[in-house]
């Protein structure tokens, strides 16, 4: 088990499976607000759903209206259950607050493998990486 510490953006707790993006996410236009599927053309997570996952990504990008996309995902029952960022910016911070999604930033997200099981205590700004799952990573040919 590995323990990471960061800064609380919005409080609460969550336990679940990580969906990790090594690239920034644009919620407005980049995520379907009704399904939670990432639709940004060429994004590494294109076609995958963030619904019910602990969403791990460096930071948000794009239009500030993206905050409302997180709110709409929550209303549709398709929001991530927690958000972990390297550096949170206003789009994600405001989105997490209005959608009431536990959110922690200043997390070394490189320490979190995709599909690992996490326990997030956003009130304390702490993240436990409980079961780092060995994922198959194809090497260079």
């Amino acid at each position: 088990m590995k323990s990471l510490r960061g800064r609380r953006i919005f409080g609460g707790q969550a336990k679940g499976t990580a969906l990790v993006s090594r690239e920034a996410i644009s919620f407005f236009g980049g995520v379907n607000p009704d399904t939670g599927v990432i639709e940004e053309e060429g994004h590494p997570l294109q076609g995958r759903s963030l619904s019910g996952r602990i969403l791990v990504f460096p930071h948000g990008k794009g239009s500030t209206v993206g905050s409302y996309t997180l709110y709409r995902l929550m209303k549709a029952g398709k929001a991530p259950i927690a958000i972990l960022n390297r550096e949170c910016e206003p789009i994600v911070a405001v989105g997490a607050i209005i959608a009431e999604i536990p959110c922690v930033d200043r997390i070394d997200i490189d320490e979190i493998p995709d599909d690992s099981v996490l326990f997030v205590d956003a009130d304390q700004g702490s993240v436990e990486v409980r079961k780092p799952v060995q994922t198959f990573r194809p090497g260079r040919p």
Partner: protein
Amino acid sequence: MDAYGPLALTEEEEATLAGEDGRAAKKAMEILVALGNIYGAKRLIEVKSVQIAGVSYDNLGDAGLAFLREIALDGRVRVPATLNPAGMDLQDWKELGISEAFAEKQNQVIEAFARMGVMTTCTCTPYFIGNEPGPGDSIAWSESSAVCYANSVLGARTNREGGPSALAAALTGKTAAYGFHLEEARQPVVCVEVDAFLDEMADFGALGKVVGEKMGNRVPYIDGIRRATTDQLKSLCASIATYGGTALFHAAGISPETVKRPRERVTIGPEEIEQAKQEMSDDEDVDFIAIGCPHCSPAELRRIAGLLRGKRVSRETWIAVARPVKEAAEGEGLIAAIRESGAKIAADTCFVVAPIRGRFRCMATNSAKAVFYGRAKNRFKTVFAPLEKLIEIATGP
């Protein structure tokens, strides 16, 4: 909050955060606290006025509307607040070809803001309608051109707020003290020497594009603008904020703040301004003329009415304006004169936020900002030209 960032709250602010002033005020305080901590603010400060973006249903969508309606349940503004342009003329939307379905949703957005006590005047030029702060005043505005105008021409202090953070400021009367609220961040770092003859608003828009692109988010000190009208400065502000990241400049002889002239310097000459103008023009047939980005002043309306007198427009022509400015101009007979030509008055709205993507092929405008969003958001080709030329195109064969 101490475990979480440098921001210290007063007892009163803690109470709001604990929910004692209701749910909306609590949400608002949570937003201010989070942003304050992200940007390293030590305290909250009071604001004199707020200007809220995120008004057009075209940008908000159902998600934004749902959020605003929830906030309106118990949220009430504590300081004067006005709105950015809506997606349509709130009265004459049919004339602009807006659908019934869009109008219904747009009206729900406006109703939600009205319930909160926001003045539902929708304009990007709040300084033309009485929301005009003075030097040193702390405010929380969103619209990028207005933020730049307030900071640079009026000497007020504001960051470029997003829609929800401006709303949070309105509901609490406060904002976090970081960025342009602090002396340090307002200091210019590069001196821009302008060596060119500037006459039309379009010239100032082109200059703003060059300055914005050169500066990015660095604060410039602009020297060499001999004289400028309010409208020309409005155009410069809109353009700098659109093409660069910064919403503050200091202009010698214009900006009220006393600052030191930076040592690093760049020069902008007529060739660069000419090149900027050419970059904004595609060689296409115009089917839409857009005037009033930012919204027209009374002086512009007089000039437009004069140029249109006795003529008929042959292409769709919109003149965007704040409703109070339109109403004042009605008394002078200007609106009737403009309408007689067939040109349309678009009050409360503009070409950037109205749902007109794909409706026109090529838009002619004297606004460098409108060119940027016309291309990016609405997928129009564009022609950039001064006002007289625009009227020529509008009334031409």
